[in-house]
């Protein structure tokens, strides 16, 4: 019996000693102390070493765009690290072109902060914030588009320009076990600072859209960050041709609401292409804008109206409709929001009508 107890005691003692040694090692070897990250040559941040650059910056309220939440599977979190990063890691190589490797572009989620760093990021990212919000409205606009209204809790106000987008954090749910981020344009007016409205269309096998359409409820907390994006109304008098269908309406609607608020007199035509009547939504809002804006017309068109639709409006693909309505586009500007296919087809038509590429603006996420 004593022999057994001695045996157990010895094993336990050895285990304890080794564990203590490892804890000591972890506290010293794996401990990187605090490091200074200098952003754009001016902003100095003191962060705890040992974490990824992406996570450390996030802690300091600087949000580098990322779709995968830092797992190295999207390649979006590129930053320029001028000094202090160490050699390129095998997990970064697949995402960086030779040009980028030469100019010291790194993936923020893979670079570990082990010593002082000097980095360079686009200026506008410095004004991006993270917001905790609560779902205050969930409306079905069509069979596959939901309008989500998020009321800001903390901070309570957001400042953005109409046309910009925010990143929506999808928490782990069902089969997923890590957060993921997806970008959506804000469709509410920029004057409304205490809430943001999004239009989210269901995508088969989509991580975020499944969450929004099947799991999200009024009262749920949602974390967003932003604003991002350079798509916005230009500061000119040119006539506007807007082309956006489905959830592409979001940034256009935000821009129109801003125009309404300041009574912008610019001539504006918005071509909304859909398949059948059930894909149309917010018609009342658009009709109202036609009344309140000095020179705005909303022109919906159906490419395949169904039997019971009783459609008297424009028919055909949106490119055909634009072609019919527009003769000379050389004095106009275009604002396009939609799939690359639609945008390419529209750019082609507009150029045929005399519009220059520099006057064509499109919202591209991908």
């Amino acid at each position, binding site marked *: 019996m004593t022999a057994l107890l001695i045996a157990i005691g010895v094993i336990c003692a050895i285990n304890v000693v*080794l564990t203590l040694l490892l804890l000591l*090692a972890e506290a010293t*070897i794996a401990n990187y102390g605090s490091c200074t990250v200098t952003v754009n040559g001016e902003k100095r941040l003191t962060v705890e070493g040992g974490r990824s650059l992406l996570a450390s910056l996030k802690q300091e309220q600087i949000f580098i765009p990322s779709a995968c939440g830092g797992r190295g599977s999207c390649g979006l979190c590129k930053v320029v690290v001028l000094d202090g990063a160490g050699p390129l890691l095998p997990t970064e190589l697949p995402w960086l072109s030779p040009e980028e490797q030469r100019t010291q572009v790194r993936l923020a989620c893979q670079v570990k902060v082990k010593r002082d760093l000097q980095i360079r990021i686009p200026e506008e990212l410095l004004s991006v914030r993270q917001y905790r919000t609560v779902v205050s409205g969930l409306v079905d606009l069509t069979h596959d588009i939901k309008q989500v209204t998020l009321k800001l809790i903390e901070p309570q106000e957001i400042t953005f320009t109409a046309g910009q987008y925010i990143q929506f954090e999808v928490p782990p749910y069902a089969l997923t076990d890590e957060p993921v981020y997806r970008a959506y344009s804000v469709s509410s007016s920029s004057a409304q600072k205490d809430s943001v409205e999004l239009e989210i269309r269901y995508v088969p096998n989509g991580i975020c859209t499944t969450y929004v359409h099947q799991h999200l409820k009024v009262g749920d907390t949602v974390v967003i960050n932003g604003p991002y994006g350079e798509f916005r109304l230009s500061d000119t008098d040119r006539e506007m041709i807007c082309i956006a269908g489905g959830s592409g309406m979001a940034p256009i609607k935000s821009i129109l609401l801003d125009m309404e608020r300041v009574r912008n007199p610019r001539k504006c035509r918005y071509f909304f292409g859909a398949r059948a009547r059930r894909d149309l939504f917010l018609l009342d809002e658009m009709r109202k804008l036609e009344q309140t804006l000095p020179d705005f017309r909303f022109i919906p068109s159906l490419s395949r109206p169904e039997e019971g639709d009783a459609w008297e409006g424009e028919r055909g693909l949106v490119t055909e409709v634009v072609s019919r309505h527009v003769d000379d586009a050389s004095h106009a500007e275009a604002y396009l929001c939609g799939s690359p296919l639609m945008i390419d087809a529209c750019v082609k038509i507009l150029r045929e009508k005399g519009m220059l590429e520099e006057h064509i603006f499109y919202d591209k996420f991908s």
Partner: protein
Amino acid sequence: MESLGFFAIFFSAVFTNNILLTNYLGMCSFLGCSRELKTSFGLGAAVIFVMAATSVLNWLVYTYVLVPLNLDYLRFIVFIVVIAAFTQLVEMIIERVSEALYLSLGLFLPLIAVNCAILGASLFMVIRQYTFWQTFGYGLGAGVGWGLAILAMAGIRQRLAQRSRVPAGLEGPGIALIIAGTMALAFMGFNGMVSLN
């Protein structure tokens, strides 16, 4: 054997009784991680450190704790625990010093803990009743021998990949084992120079 000194044991552990090519221990990471010279060098260095350190540590634990208390039957468990703890330590050090190496070694770094060559070295030390310095010589030598073997293998495989056409069915483990066998045959030429038993 009492008569063999540190250098004799070291030399024979590297060449004549190479733990990998003669005793065929530690084949798993040897086959899996020997494609590139750089990673093999890193892994070899890690194994040398772990093997030398753990065989000495295990000798100390065995001689001063297990034997006096009549617990030498516990040596398997205790040796493995010491090896596992040490491997963790090595992981932390490598992650600190060179993250690129840490990532390219990937799974094979924690797998050092279950590398049977390392446990084998400690067990041989017990079977052959080595003294402290003999143990150190053997552990270091076995590690160096293993590292040498994996470097040679990586060099050969890199060369083969560039210049030869390996038949499709033999790619990967097939050709690696053939190479290992040929290397073992070559090392048999050292036989008889020093005997460790």
